[in-house]
């Protein structure tokens, strides 16, 4: 039982797969990934649960696999959530410092963050994250930790990620149905960026795009803080669907074509090339024009990037992204996706590697796992914070 309290599990219920990653603090206090379990997802569309029974089964399979691999019992998870209903916004909270000597204490910080949270969310929406960006003391900008400073007016900028309460409850309910506790829910875009970005990249400013099966989540870091988050309910499924419609092939075949012949750009010299599809007897049945396939696919990929770019341009964020664009999720597997992204964003683009966690086996360092690995990292940060606080309390006694 001691073992299980030491592990941190990230569970991502995605549109194409359910993935559980088990992390463990080794004797030096460094986080190690010790197990991964995954299962094909059948009950999720566009990042949201549509068939709870199927999802429950898939989650169970993934958890069992992860338990076997890590040789640990999973009792609680950090759950990744996404969906087109999630929104990110920046808000500012104000709090007057009332103590006689005008020294800011921990309570003031908590109060000001609480004030920042009190925004008019649409009815039925709930706050998932409140990420502190920076503090202002009497109008002085850029303060990271105001505790101990003097001032009469404390302000804080926060980034709030909120979503529909009922729709967020669906995956939680499924996981709880398996007698597994949900420690916290985390927006998968945020967790992906945690796994991928280093501190320097966050300082310089970076955009992570997690192109999943059903949604595309994106997060912008600038000056080391979360500036913007967003979700597009468009992903790899849409590419398959477009191909199925455009090439007049069944969806499963379209999926296969996407994986085997897909590309994010239409390169020259493929004009007139045909792909022969075999029928169920293994005989040649139908031919598909490779150029058409690429055209359809590149149109969709380009559009996804364009929609993200439009959103960032609207928030005047493009100039803050100096270290570049990082792509993860299953979409990062599309050949030449960097070229397509560079074309749209006019920024250096690379595939995200989950390099922020030590001891990661290369087999696990796949773009698809970024979100789940990020969940473990998020969990470790939360635990460190709480244990750190506990230790401090013990020592301060």
């Amino acid at each position: 039982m001691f073992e299980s309290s030491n592990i941190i599990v990230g569970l991502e219920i995605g549109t194409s797969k359910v993935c559980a990653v088990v992390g463990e603090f080794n004797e030096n206090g460094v986080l190690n990934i010790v197990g991964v379990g995954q299962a094909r997802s059948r009950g999720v569309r566009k990042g949201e649960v549509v068939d709870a029974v199927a999802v429950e089964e898939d989650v169970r399979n993934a958890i069992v696999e992860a338990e076997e691999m890590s040789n640990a019992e999973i009792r609680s998870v950090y759950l990744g959530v996404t969906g087109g209903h999630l929104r990110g916004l920046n808000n500012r909270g104000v709090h007057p410092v009332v103590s006689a000597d005008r020294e800011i204490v921990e309570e003031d910080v908590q109060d000001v963050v609480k004030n920042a949270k009190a925004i008019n969310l649409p009815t039925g929406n709930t706050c998932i994250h409140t990420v502190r960006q920076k503090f202002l003391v009497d109008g002085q900008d850029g303060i990271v930790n105001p505790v101990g400073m003097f001032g009469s007016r404390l302000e804080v900028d926060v980034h709030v990620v909120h979503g529909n309460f009922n729709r967020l409850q669906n995956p939680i309910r499924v996981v709880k149905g398996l007698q597994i506790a949900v420690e916290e829910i985390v927006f998968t875009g945020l967790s992906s960026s945690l796994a991928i970005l280093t501190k320097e990249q966050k300082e310089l400013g970076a955009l992570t795009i997690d192109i999943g099966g059903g949604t595309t989540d994106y997060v912008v870091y600038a000056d080391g803080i979360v500036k913007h988050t967003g979700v597009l309910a468009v992903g790899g499924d849409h590419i398959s669907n477009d191909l199925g419609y455009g090439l007049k092939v069944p969806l499963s075949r379209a999926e296969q074509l996407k994986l085997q012949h897909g590309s994010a750009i239409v390169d020259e010299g493929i004009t007139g090339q045909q792909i022969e599809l075999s029928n169920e007897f293994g005989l040649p049945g139908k031919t598909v024009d490779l150029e058409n396939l690429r055209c359809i696919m590149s149109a969709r990929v380009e559009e996804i990037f364009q929609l993200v770019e439009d959103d960032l341009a609207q928030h005047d964020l493009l100039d803050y992204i100096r270290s570049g664009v990082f792509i993860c999720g299953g979409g990062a597997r599309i050949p030449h996706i960097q070229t397509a992204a560079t074309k749209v964003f006019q920024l250096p683009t690379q595939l995200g590697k989950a390099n922020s966690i030590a001891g990661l086996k290369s087999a696990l360092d796949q773009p698809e796992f970024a979100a789940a690995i990020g969940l473990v990292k998020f969990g470790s940060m939360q635990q460190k914070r709480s244990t750190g606080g506990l230790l401090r309390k013990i020592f301060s006694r």
Partner: protein
Amino acid sequence: MNKPNEDFKSVVDKNLTIKVVGLGGAGCNVLRHLATTTLSSHFQLIAADTDARAIAQFSQGLALGQKMTRGLGTGGDPEVGRAAAMAQAEDLKILCGGTDIIFLVGGLGGGLATGAIGLMAQAAKDAGALVLAIVTLPFDFEGVRRQRQAQQGLQQLKPIADAVICLPNQGFGELFDQNASIVEVFERSNQLIAQNIFAIWRLAAQPGLIKLDFADLCSVTRGRHTESSSATVEAEGEDRSETVVEKLFSHPFLRDEKLLRESEAVLVSFAAGSDLTMKEVNGVMERINSACANAHIVFGVAVDEQLGNKMSVTLIVSRRGKLVEHSADEEPLSRFGGVDEKEEPAEDHRASRFSPPAPMISDEKKEKLFKQKSRPRSRKKIMMQQGQLPLEIISRGRFEKSEPTIHQGEDLDVPTYLRKNVALN
């Protein structure tokens, strides 16, 4: 030469600017053919296509819809062609400016010509030019869809262009034996269009024995919105005038006697070497006059030494507002197209469907009743025609039942290439 003619000549020399605009693949092919002929110097040839490669071969070209199709074709989709032309309306206007006659040449049924020819004609018309469209209709084997598209294109074009000369490829295959190569057939099609252009040009602009002027041409064509068919025949030898007439009346496009009888305007263009005699012209014209009793006949005779002892006659026959029946092969076309019903079969139909009138009704009354009944009947006939549904139902496939992803008014579940009009080949 008398004075008015000299006056006219100076006008010609100064003003008569003729542009030939080739739309789409077929149009460009015709231009290519025109460019190889000796007379091409009298025309400005302008290619307009979405296919950048095709354009590159011409000195004057208008590349349409480069953003939309990325320099590729339209994929046989008239909507793409139309959108491409619409996006570049300004360019079309500039292209058409300062011109007296604009020939629009294209093959209907495909993407660009079908979609853009209406807009092009409008632009030319707005610029004050006489708009003469020479279009081909697809072969029967090209399928119902292309036929339907072609008919829709024709419908758009007819009310705008001053005259439309319609050449069905199918009828034209008849000019050859079955074994003629496809290259030959298309080559011949291009040639025929070129001959039409030359014939009209010859009428208006070339010095000839019997001349007519631009105003004459306008009086026959301008504002009439006719649909015409045309034929060019050549003959040589002693009794060439006889042969020409025979060939003309047996030509697949003109074979139908009714066509000539009901024609409203006929343009006849003679061209021959200097040995052309008045008797020959007279003989041919007599026959044409007797065949087209009610028509306004405009004719011109030109001397072209290059023809040698050959005689070439081009006949352009116009009939207003009705689909000209070019040949027997055209029957299925009009049926699919849902344009104007053929008159002849309709009458047959009527006779068979109506029970004979009761014997006691007098002839007078019978006629009255017949008229009364026939009117609603014809309306009913139109109603019975199956139209094309305006809506293209786009499947959302796997997202059929899920909540649509609407982003700034666009349903992102619909394939991007459909929304962005990316043409597939």
